[in-house]
């Protein structure tokens, strides 16, 4: 079993402290949801885990299996098994989806070893079928001219192909209609299992109807103010976020 431990994390962007002492633990085999109102620091959490250069960790730690990842480049974190599905996936003009995935997989192989092209395409087509993605998609440039739903499905496809140990899904449900949401959720559900830990970052409870979390955490003003089981999400749905805002942080361990 692998785990990520975030301990007393403080994060600033351009000298403004966004995350103010956040602690969270999660392990493979678990699905955690982090919910919270806009501006609570949810997306900052995802980006700082992935190593975005604009986010400065001023205090605290993020450990993957006991090893700090804070000094690692984003690509090293990725190759160690940390995946982030972007809220706004980037376009890479002229680079086909297939070539991009091949390059990403190739980067994980030891020097001198070549990715097996036939095996790659077999696996790619199998994952695409699962996500209702048509074959011609492989030749299109990464996210270029994609609809919102296509971009999100592409994120899940990359997730499925890269098989990380931990996946952080940053507002993957935003901008999706109900059908696209179901497809994305189906994709995530087929990926879940004992080998992967998932952190779902979402504003709405809606996604959690399709991907059922083991734990729910509520973020407010840069820290986790409440943790609980999946019923916490339903409680939020009916009461809104305001009832939690005034409360002092409580720590409920994930394990």
């Amino acid at each position, binding site marked *: 079993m692998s785990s990520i431990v975030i301990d007393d994390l403080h994060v600033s962007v351009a000298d403004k402290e966004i995350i103010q002492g956040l602690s969270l633990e999660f392990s493979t085999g678990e699905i955690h949801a982090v919910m919270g109102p806009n501006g609570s620091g949810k997306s900052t959490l995802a980006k700082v885990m992935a190593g975005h*250069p604009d986010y400065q960790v001023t205090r605290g730690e993020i450990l993957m299996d006991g090893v700090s990842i804070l000094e690692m*480049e984003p690509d090293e974190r*990725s*190759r160690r098994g940390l995946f982030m599905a972007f809220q706004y996936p*980037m*376009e*890479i003009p*002229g680079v086909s989806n297939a070539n991009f995935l091949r390059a990403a997989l190739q*980067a994980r192989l030891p020097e001198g070893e070549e990715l097996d092209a036939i095996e790659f395409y077999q696996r790619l087509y199998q994952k695409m079928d699962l996500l209702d993605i048509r074959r011609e998609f492989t030749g299109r440039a990464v996210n270029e001219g994609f609809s919102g739903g296509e971009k999100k499905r592409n994120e899940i496809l990359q997730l499925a192909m*890269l098989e990380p140990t931990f996946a952080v899904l940053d507002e993957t449900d935003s901008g999706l209609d109900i059908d696209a949401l179901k497809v994305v959720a189906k994709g995530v559900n087929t990926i879940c299992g004992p080998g992967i830990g998932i952190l779902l970052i979402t504003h709405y409870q809606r996604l959690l109807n399709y991907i059922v979390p083991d734990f729910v955490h509520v973020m407010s003003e840069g820290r986790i103010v409440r943790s609980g089981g999946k019923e916490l999400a339903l409680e939020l749905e009916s009461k809104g976020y305001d009832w939690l805002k005034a409360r002092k942080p409580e720590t409920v361990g994930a394990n």
Partner: protein
Amino acid sequence: MSTTTDSIAIDRDIGNFFYNVAATRDAGVGLTEQTIDYIVDVKKEPEWLREFRKNAYHVFNSKPLPTHWAGDELKEIDFNVIRYYLASGEAPKRTWEEVPEDIKRTFERLGIPESERKFLAGVEAQFDSEAVYSNVKKAVSDQGVIFMGSTDALKERPDLFRKWFGRVIPTGDNKFSALNSAVFSGGSFIYVPPGVKVKHPLQAYFRINAENFGQFERTLIIADEGSEVMYMEGCTAPKFTTATLHSAVVELVALPGAKIQYITVQNWAPNVFNLVTKRGLAMEEAEIKWIDCNIGSRLTMKYPGVVLKGRKARGEVISIALAGDGQHQDTGAKMIHAADETSSNIVSKSISIGKGRATYRGLVHVPKHLKGCKNNTECDALLINANSRTDTYPAITVRGTGNSTQHEASVSQINAEQIFYMQQRGLSEGQAMSLAVNGFVNDLVSQFPMEYSVELKRLIDLEMEGSVG
């Protein structure tokens, strides 16, 4: 010069190595009328050429350096320390076995004999001033195709050579075409008879091996009526501490209905001044296409052009320029419309890295009396760093009522979020940059023959990975 043969210094770039090869024919340092006499005598050239060369020498001296274009970098060239002619004095060989060992090893390391076996119809390999190897497959020569070094063509086919030599690019076209006309040596000569379609590409490889040296090859390609030919050239030089000069003149003649495709992938060391004049003449319904990839060099000035002389002639320039840190790629295209219903297309993509500078200079000329002419120009620039530089100078003069032109230009920069996105998927910063650059030129590269697109991708990877810590 020492005679050790194994003094090899390999850097990350493929061409950066050399074996010491002693030249027995050496015109010495600097350029005077005696230099020209030496070249003419050693090559046993006819007297008309001596006169032609000497006239060109005076034209060269009379023209100022075009520093108002590319800038003061040109002043770094010291014409008095350059050697203008270096050769072994031996005729080009027909088999690689006959080529002297060190020269053969050089071309083997550059992969030339291997490519020849795999996919080429003929190869000419030039080492400093002269071709050392020249061979065309029998099936191709049986069709009447002539492919040889221009030194040999002058002797063997003076009729064909003299008819077109200097007709597309006159001596006085610019200072460097005059320099080439004065001291040219080597280069390819191709003649394709009427109706013959050469299936596989013909290739020339230009290798500069000596320091303080100037390579001045002269290439002339004549495609007779309704014929088709594809020619590819590659170039490398080792990285010396002093400047090296490469100043070629390439003339293409496409007679009615003929098609010529000319592909260049250059990978010069960063101290090479690459000042080349390339132009084609397209007669009625003929087609000339330049595909030009400029990687490396200190300064490249090159604007392949097509004179559209016959009705319905077509001209195309596809160019990719990669200006690394400290390099300046001043490239572009010229389209001179001189007949009705002629059309031209220019697509230029440039990439500037670090303090690299890419300049696009285009000239499109359609005079008033012509009808039904079309031009499309598209230039896109990609900047890798905030201090990279790109400039575009399009000069388009389209007159008359029935003619049209379309011009599009764009400048983009690889943004940090794209790099972060790719890094999040496991690619290093260098790999991410390289992928983005390859994506940027992808639509052009896909028009290349497979072997060249692979080579180009590899060169871009090397250049990009070297550009980030």
